[in-house]
């Protein structure tokens, strides 16, 4: 047997005039979902704004202005230097628009990093468990079942409150803290706590992807093409990474999109309760927590971090919906 797995890969056949590729079909169907397309636009705008925060923001992130006329001040408040605060100032006279932008940086980057890592983790574990079966599958399945059957929020809260409040140096990889510190444009001490938070979210966040991928692997491994791959001597690793995972990716994409919304909410909730991202690093969650203390006199305050927060979570949900419709092979049109 000298046939290698590579040589069996089909060469692309010349297509007849109008036929679309799989990607084009999915794209066309996704573009029909108007809310999902609008949501992508919202996310892109916010993402760019967050990325350019140091350039776009009218004030330094933590610049306190106690001489401003009213604190907290409504949109349009003038600073003591005579510049306008477009969205007003908080109780310390810090510019809310600036902090909103940096908050977007925190919320979005935490969400993207956590989701990418936990989905990767879940996909690989799930694919291997489903494909190989045996004791590994049993261990992973039981673990997933267990993690899905405990209320995540209380566990997150307890863990975060214990880890975040401590000043002790935790054994964190320098690569991670340096990267997060660079990304958030925040000093390393602040980055430390964000890394802890992300680690907790990842540890509890991979189960959905693992369960989905395991299910896909279970159905895929009995199909003829896998049999064919085995016959030509493809290794298990090759089958899993080149064939099982790419074929089972559709539900994972939907899951990741909904996961982004979930992580944004989880981070905001923890920060709101005071165990997530800590002041002075702004996050939409801890901005809302400050807003809560002043909202009875200034009812507009919760709207400023709240509206972008909801926009983001709703947008990720609509994108997930759009992807689900676009990737569903049963709705081929």
């Amino acid at each position, binding site marked *: 047997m000298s046939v290698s797995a590579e040589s069996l890969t089909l060469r692309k056949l010349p297509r007849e005039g109008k036929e679309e590729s799989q990607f084009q079909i999915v794209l066309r169907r996704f573009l029909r979902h108007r809310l999902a397309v609008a949501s992508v636009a919202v996310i892109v705008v916010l993402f760019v704004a967050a990325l350019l925060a140091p350039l776009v923001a009218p004030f330094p992130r933590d610049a306190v202005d106690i001489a401003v006329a009213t604190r907290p001040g409504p949109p349009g408040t003038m600073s003591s230097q005579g510049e306008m605060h477009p969205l007003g100032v908080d109780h310390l006279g810090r510019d809310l628009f600036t902090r909103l932008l940096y908050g977007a940086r925190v919320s979005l980057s935490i969400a993207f990093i956590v989701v990418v890592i936990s989905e990767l983790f879940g996909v690989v574990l799930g694919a291997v468990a489903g494909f190989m079966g045996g004791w590994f599958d049993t261990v992973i399945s039981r673990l997933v079942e267990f993690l*899905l059957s*405990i209320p995540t929020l*209380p*566990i997150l809260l307890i863990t975060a*409150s214990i880890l975040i409040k*401590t000043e002790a140096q935790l054994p964190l990889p320098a690569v991670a803290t340096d990267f997060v510190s660079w990304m958030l444009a925040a000093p390393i001490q602040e980055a430390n706590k964000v890394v802890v938070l992300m680690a907790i979210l990842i540890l509890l966040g991979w189960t959905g992807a693992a369960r989905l991928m395991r299910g896909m692997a279970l159905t895929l491994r009995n199909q003829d093409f896998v049999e064919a791959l085995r016959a030509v001597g493809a290794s298990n690793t090759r089958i899993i990474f080149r064939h099982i995972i790419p074929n089972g990716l559709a539900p994972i994409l939907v899951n990741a999109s909904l996961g982004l919304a979930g992580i944004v909410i989880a981070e905001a909730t923890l920060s709101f309760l005071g165990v997530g991202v800590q002041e002075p690093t702004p996050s939409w969650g801890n901005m809302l927590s400050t*807003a809560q203390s002043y909202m009875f006199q200034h009812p507009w305050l919760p709207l400023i971090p709240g509206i972008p927060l*909801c926009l983001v979570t709703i947008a990720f949900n*609509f994108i997930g919906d759009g992807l689900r419709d676009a990737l569903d092979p049963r709705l081929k049109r």
Partner: protein
Amino acid sequence: MGRYIFRRLLQAIPTLLGVSILSFLLISAAPGDPVTLRTFGDVRMTEQARQVLRQQLGLDQPFFVQYLAWMTGWSVRQGDQVAALTTPQVRCSYWKGLQLTLCDRGGGILRGDLGTSLDTKQPVWARVVERMAATLELGVASLLLSLALGVPLGVLSAVHRGSVFDNVVRFFAVIFQAIPIFWMALLLILFFAVYLGWLPTGGRQTVSLTQEFDLGDRIRHLLLPALVLSFGGIAGFSRIMRTEMLEVLHADYIRTAQAKGLVSGQVWFVHGLRNALIPLMTVMGPAVVGVLGGAVVVETLFAWPGMGRLTVNAAFQQDYPVVLGTGMFFALLTVAGYLLSDLFYAAVDPRVRFE
């Protein structure tokens, strides 16, 4: 049926054991300890006195020794310390082969004792039970609310598929599932409690000298937190009901019922709904988990004296016995929720029992 229940009860044991190990591990891995936190800045405390306190609480012992003591009330020490550790209340014996002293201090979870709170010195059991009623009240109210609103919305949305009503329901289902509940809570407090002044901003009842039970007052306090907590459920249930109803509506027996000339309402809600409800049972378990998780946030926001708020406060205060106790209760409630939903499912669909 009896055997099925028994088997499911047995399966709950590893979950509870897992939760106990996980929460205990988390807490012993945590840097900083409750003794330092409580005596911080106290000039009368010497490092030696702190060490004695730690020894009394058993905090100086390795993880598994502490875990064993917490579970069973048995404490283990190295070497022969029978003479030093024996008191009228504590019986000890020396285990020669392993060179370990084993003392039975009483208590332990397995004997139904969750330990005592570091802050109030009350038994954890009492503190949790005191709060449990409030959490159950809130959780049950919000589950009922989400079923009462979510199911009919889903059915009507499926029946009028493609109509304006359907589109509005589906749109808001996505919105309500996406919006963080704590923000929703802030807005509702501002609108109903501050702006309109119709409902109280928080608490479980109006504080008065007599503390008499006043049902109207209780309900007014319950309304906002239960509503906030049910948003996710309303959205989720209506989405599931819509999908299930759409499938059921194409079934032959629906056409038969319509051919017999039954009124539409009767066909949808009697013939259709019953069959569409079966899959709803499977999501009741996760719904209970969602409500319990949400309760932690909602209780904190509305100053609702439940287990969620107790957990948050105890975690901040590093009152570990209380944190562990509430953690176990959350796990117990979750397991109970899954168990109930499985039992309902087995009751409506006999095939499950014989698997």
